[in-house]
């Protein structure tokens, strides 16, 4: 008999709100978190909009110092991704009422996280004097010392948020970071659930953190033609499943969940939000940037999640779509839902909260699973905003523009990524009787 996995805490830093209730108010009100980029002058970039977290100060959420100070006095402000993770984790641990308890020693951490954002001014300061039209004179570059760069580069490692969370909560169990692009945090949650099922731990901190709104990232994705260029109408730029969608909008944030073995949670009187019942992961093995035309990996990930949960698609009540707002994803995802769910695809409401949050890349899956958790709690579905003109290739019920009251027990959360990574998670409303 499998050990069961409860979600007993969550915390979030997102472009539509910081903290569970602000986030949920934003999503159910259909508020867009997308705006003109405010942190720097983006007027030189082809894309000038993003979903930025606003009004965030680490000290409002935790007493962890927002700067790292090395033994020799080098002071580095932690990158945004790490700060978001620290804040979201503090909220999640508090929400689960596990703060300060000695409960965390043998816990696991599994995060999906990207690299920290580059400090372009620092990098440019080092490299510009050594560079010319033919490249960089490495002899000159290597000549100086760059202790600040060295420490900051080390703190940009993908694993920095997880390692700093381990230090914060004294976690000495398995601490892992995966980096499977847009599927990373969903994959991390699935893998963390496996650890609880298999008895590796009773408690896990999981989810993801990422910030890809810096010039480097916006430029890189814009050059791949992946982003919406609706610079003049930011709030309307992310429009999954709409006929006039033209790409995704980069976002940022962190979503952290406390997963707990069901009996462990019940023993201490915790009230689970929901139960993670299924996880599926499959690869397209097709192209690095394009989804398989028949969405074979996505279809199989969904099927595997249902098999894992031993749940019938007819019992599904809601799908939180990957729904990036690219022409290709939304069509392929629709096709995957048809393949995997059969007739239930037409009767199950589906929404993309990326229409409001933008695409937080490695953090997206965790932010979306938190949306699913709150939808199950309140029996309300967040909408897909900006869905104005139906696309004949996207022929399902996408909960357009307005939140919807809906009685349901089982939800699916999809996360698909560059490189053909596909992850599906199935979650069930907490049932008191089934302890």
């Amino acid at each position: 008999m499998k050990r069961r996995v409860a979600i007993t805490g969550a915390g979030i830093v997102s472009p539509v709100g910081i903290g569970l209730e602000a986030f949920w108010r934003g999503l159910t009100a259909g508020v867009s978190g997308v705006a003109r980029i405010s942190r720097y002058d983006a007027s030189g970039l082809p894309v000038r909009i993003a979903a930025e977290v606003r009004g965030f100060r680490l000290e409002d959420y935790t007493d962890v110092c927002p700067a790292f100070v090395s033994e020799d006095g080098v002071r580095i402000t932690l990158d945004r991704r790490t700060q978001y993770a620290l804040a979201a984790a503090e909220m999640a641990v508090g929400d689960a009422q596990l703060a300060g308890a000695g409960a965390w020693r043998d816990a696991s951490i599994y995060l999906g996280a990207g690299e920290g954002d580059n400090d372009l001014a620092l990098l440019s300061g080092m490299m510009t004097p050594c560079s010319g039209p033919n490249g960089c004179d490495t002899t000159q570059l290597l000549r100086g010392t760059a202790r600040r760069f060295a420490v900051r580069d080390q703190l940009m490692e993908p694993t920095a948020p997880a390692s700093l969370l381990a230090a914060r909560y004294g976690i000495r169990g398995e601490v892992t970071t995966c980096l499977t692009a847009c599927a990373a945090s969903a994959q991390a949650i699935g893998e963390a659930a496996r650890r609880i099922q298999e008895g590796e731990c009773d408690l896990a901190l999981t989810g993801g953190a990422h910030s890809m709104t810096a010039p480097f990232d916006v430029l890189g994705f814009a050059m791949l033609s992946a982003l919406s260029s609706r610079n003049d109408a930011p709030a309307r730029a992310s429009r999954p499943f709409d006929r006039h969608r033209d790409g995704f909008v980069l976002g940022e944030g962190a979503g952290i969940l406390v997963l707990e073995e069901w009996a462990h949670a019940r023993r201490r009187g915790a009230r689970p939000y929901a139960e993670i019942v299924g996880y599926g992961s499959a690869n397209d093995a097709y192209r690095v940037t394009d989804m398989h035309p028949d969405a074979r990996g996505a279809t199989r990930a969904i099927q595997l999640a249902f098999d894992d949960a031993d749940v019938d698609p007819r019992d599904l009540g809601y799908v939180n779509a990957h729904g990036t707002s690219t022409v290709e994803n939304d069509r392929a995802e629709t096709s995957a839902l048809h393949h995997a769910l059969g007739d239930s695809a037409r009767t199950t409401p589906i929404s993309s909260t990326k229409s409001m949050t933008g695409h937080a890349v490695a953090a997206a899956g965790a932010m979306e699973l938190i949306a699913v958790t709150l939808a199950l709690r309140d029996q309300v579905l967040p909408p897909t905003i900006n869905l104005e003109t139906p696309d004949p290739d996207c022929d399902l019920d996408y909960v357009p523009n307005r939140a919807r009251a809906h009685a349901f027990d089982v939800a699916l959360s999809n996360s698909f990524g560059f490189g053909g990574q596909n992850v599906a998670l199935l979650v069930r409303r907490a049932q008191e009787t089934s302890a």
Partner: protein
Amino acid sequence: MTMFRRRVVVTGLGVVSPIGNDVTAFWSSLLDGRSGAAPIAAFPVGGAAPAYAAEVKGFTPESAGLPRKRLKMMGRQAQLAFAAASAASLDAALPGAGVLATRLGMLLGVGMLNADVDEFGRAFHAASVAAGADFDEVAFGRSGAPALFPLWLLRHIPNLAAAHAAIALDAQGPSNTIATGCVAAANAIGEAARIIGRGEADVILAGGTDARVSPLATIRYRDLGWLATREDAEPATVSAPFDEAAAGFVNGEGAGVVVLEALEHARARGAHVHAEVAGYAAANDACGMLTPDRAGAALHQAISRCLDRADISRGAVDVVFAPAPSVAPFDRATAAALASAFGGSHAPAITATRSLLGHTHAASSALDCVAAVKSIGDSRIPATANLRRPIATLPFVTDAARHAAIRTALVGAYGFGGHAAALALRGYDQ
């Protein structure tokens, strides 16, 4: 005994390393004590230190079967991984073996990717011509961007190393990319064994890849104080794990991939079994990003849990491939962990391949796994080079490779971020 519900065996090996670009060359270099350290070829260093690194030599992507069209989209770490995965797949005789694509997985540990300094140097230069010396993001966007290869971002997306290899081998099963620094490959191999053990895949290519012999990574490690910079010695003598004179690691690069397979699947297709994966565990020091716990707590815990789960007694371990990188605090923590995990009387032979390979970061524990599997099959343990004055009284293998019957080999992994892991490999017996 094994900790996995289904027995998991190793049926293929592939490497690209500073001491050989195939398993045969790699293994004979380890046995003969040939170092991979040499003057840096990838970029001019002028008079700066260090002038040496452990680079992969003579690697031609074309000979690894890399599609020319795709090369421009692949960073070096993806290219090395592609070559190691292809070699492992051939060694396991996977092509044409009828493995179900949906039951074939790919899990890699990868390193962080720094910017290509020539490409970004051109962009920063163009921006500075337009707007002056101080960084200006508007000028960077307007004038710098045209200096970049349009698909540059694809070379910087870490999971594309596994993606390119998965496409070539049609691996549609479970896939993951793990980025836990120097422990990443051990995590990838351990997690792959679990996935096969629980029945979610039949065959997984697992390992690690890293290509950090770059100007920016060199600066990073040098100015963190971890990189060896001494110029008074031959490059081959600089990496000295567990030695009093350890003065930093030699920066290395490479990729190692093992084919893991459910035993029943390997038997059914008549595959040659190199060894069995008997156990795995991971742990963390909980002490931040820069320094390990002095007592090596996480490595001790990973080793103990790994052996306990596999029901292997301390005395039954014949050799440990130890993760000492030639950086004093990490060497000492590793030695402390080995001493406490095994106790004096049970300590197995210990060797550190980083003395020859340099530190290949996210690839390091995959290369150690390949070496461990070879040591089991070949009954020989490579020596730790440059170990003259050990920092601890432990049974280090020094001077020359040693003949020994090896039934159980342990691979230890340890690095920054508090990460540690251990993998137990065992000679296959029916």
